[in-house]
C-alpha cells in the first residue's frame, strides 16, 4: 500500500486516561479512509495528532514521508498548507463574511491577484452550492451551510490531504447526501487523500475506500468496507449494528464507592 499517512506505535493519554495504546495504521494515498468508532474513542484526537496540534506520548506519525512531530515550526506550517481540515463546528472566522473566509487561505498563501482570488472563491463556493451566500456572515448561516462553507475553505488551496471531522453530525438527510456527494466528487476530481472521521456507518461506508475502526484505544479492524462488513469481530459487529450490549461498553466506567462519597453522591 502506498501510504500517505503512517501511524506507528502511537501512544497518547489525557491526564490518567489512555486514549491510544500502541496504535499503528496506514492511510492510503489518493483514497478516502474512514476512521470510525464509538464516541470518545479519540477519533478527533487522531486528526489533531496527524496535524501535529497535539504531540503523542510515544510513537511517530509520518505525513507524506515527513515525521510531523519533529518538524520545525516553519516546516510544520509549510506542511499544513497542503492540508485542509473541516472542523466539526465549521470554525468559520466570525468577523469575516463567507467570501472572506474562503478567500483567507488564498490571500495568506498565494500571490494571486484580487480578480483571480474572486474567481477561485466563487468557484469553490459554487461547488458547495453556496455561491449566492458569499456576502453573508457566519452568524447568518445554518449549521449545515456553515459546514459547507468550511469545506469550501478547507479545499481553497487544493490541498493534498483533507481531514473531515464528523462531517455528517447534526445534518439533515439532504445536507448529508450533498456532503457525501461532495466528498466523493472532490476525491475523484483531484489526487486528494481524504481522512473521514465519523460514526455515521452508512454514509461513511458508502464513500470510503478504506476503513479503520477504533475501540478501546486500539485498531480493532482495518480494510475495505466489504471486509469490515464481513468482520466477525464482535466489537465491529456491535458498532456496525448499533447494539447496546456487547464488548464495547455503553456506560462510562463507574467510580468506586469511596470516590462517589467524595463527590457527595452517597450519604
Amino acid at each position, binding site marked *: 500500500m502506498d501510504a500517505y499517512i503512517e501511524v506507528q506505535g502511537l501512544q497518547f493519554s489525557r491526564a490518567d486516561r489512555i486514549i491510544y495504546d500502541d496504535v499503528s495504521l496506514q492511510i492510503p494515498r489518493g483514497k478516502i479512509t474512514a476512521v470510525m468508532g464509538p464516541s470518545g474513542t479519540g477519533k478527533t484526537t487522531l486528526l489533531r495528532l496527524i*496535524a501535529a*496540534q497535539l504531540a503523542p506520548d510515544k510513537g511517530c506519525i509520518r505525513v507524506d514521508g515527513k515525521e510531523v512531530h519533529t518538524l520545525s515550526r516553519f516546516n510544520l*506550517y509549510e*506542511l499544513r498548507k497542503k492540508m485542509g481540515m473541516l472542523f466539526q463546528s465549521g470554525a468559520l*472566522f*466570525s468577523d469575516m463574511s463567507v467570501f472572506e473566509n474562503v478567500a483567507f487561505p488564498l490571500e*495568506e*498563501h498565494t500571490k494571486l491577484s484580487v480578480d483571480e482570488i474572486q474567481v477561485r472563491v466563487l468557484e469553490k463556493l459554487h461547488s458547495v452550492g453556496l455561491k449566492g451566500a458569499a456576502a453573508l456572515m457566519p452568524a447568518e448561516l445554518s449549521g449545515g451551510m456553515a459546514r459547507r462553507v468550511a469545506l469550501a475553505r478547507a479545499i481553497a488551496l487544493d490541498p493534498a490531504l483533507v481531514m473531515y471531522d464528523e462531517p455528517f453530525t447534526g445534518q439533515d438527510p439532504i445536507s448529508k447526501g450533498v456532503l457525501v456527494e461532495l466528498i466523493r466528487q472532490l476525491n475523484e476530481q483531484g489526487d486528494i487523500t481524504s481522512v473521514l472521521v465519523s460514526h455515521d456507518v452508512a454514509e461513511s461506508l458508502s464513500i470510503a475506500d478504506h476503513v479503520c475502526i477504533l475501540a478501546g484505544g486500539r485498531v480493532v479492524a482495518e480494510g475495505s468496507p466489504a471486509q469490515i462488513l464481513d468482520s466477525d469481530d464482535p466489537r465491529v459487529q456491535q458498532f456496525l449494528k448499533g447494539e447496546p450490549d456487547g464488548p464495547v461498553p455503553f456506560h462510562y466506567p463507574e467510580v468506586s464507592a469511596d470516590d462517589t462519597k467524595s463527590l457527595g453522591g452517597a450519604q
Partner: protein
Amino acid sequence: MNKVIGLGASALNWLEAVGKAGIFIFQSVFRLPVRLPEAINLLIKQLYSVGVLSLVIVVVSGAFIGMVLSLQGYSILAKFGSEDAVGQLLALSLLRELGPVVTALLFAGRAGSSLTAEIGLMKATEQLSSYEMMGVDPLRRVIAPRFIAGVICMPILSLIFSAVGIIGGLMVSVAWLGVHDGAFWSLMQQSVYFDTDIVNGLIKAVCFAIAVTWIAVYQGYECVPTSEGIGKATTRTVVLGSLAILALDFVLTAAMFGDF
C-alpha cells in the same frame, strides 16, 4: 514538611506560568503579519476596538474625577486661603497618578475583559485551531495586533483622561466656585514640568498598558475553552490586571518620585 513542599511547588508553578507567559508575549510581538497592508489593517481594527470604543468611559470618568478632585481640593485649600492652587493640585494629581492609574483600571475592565472573552471564544469555537491548520500562526494574526493596539492606546487614553479631568476641574473651580482663571492656569503652568510630570505619567501608562494587555491576551489564549472557563479567565484578567497596576504604580512612583 508537606506545607513547605506545597509552598515550593506553588512557587515553581508560578514561576513556570510567568515564564510561559513571557515566551508567549515575546513570540507574539515579533510575529506581526508579514504583509504590511494586512498588518496595518489588523492594527487599525484593533485600535478602534480597544481604543476608540474605550473613549466614552475614559472621558466621562475623567470629567467626573476632575470635578470631584476640584471640589475636595477647593474645600481644603480654601481653609488656608490657597484656593488658587486648585489648578496645580488638579494637574499634578491627574498627570502623575490618577490619569495613568484610573485609565489603566478602566482599560482593564472594558478593553481587557473584552480581549480575553473574544480570544477565549475564538479558542472555544476552534477558530484559533483553524488558523493553525491553515498554516497561519494565531500569535501573529490574533495576539500581536491586539497587544500592540493596547500598548499604543492606553497612554493616549491616559493623556485624554488627564486633559478632560483638568477641563472638568476648571468648570467646577473657576465657573462654579469662583477661582480666578488666570491664577488657575498660571499656577498650573509654574508647577507642572514636562519631563518629571508628563513624561513620567506617560511611562507609567506604557508600563500599565503592557501589563494589562499582556494579562488579557494571555488569559484568553490559555483559558479553558468552555463558557465557565472563559468567564473565569475574564474575571482573572480584571483582578490580576488591577492588582498588577496598583503594585506597579507603587514601584514606579517610588522610582520616579521617591526621595531616597
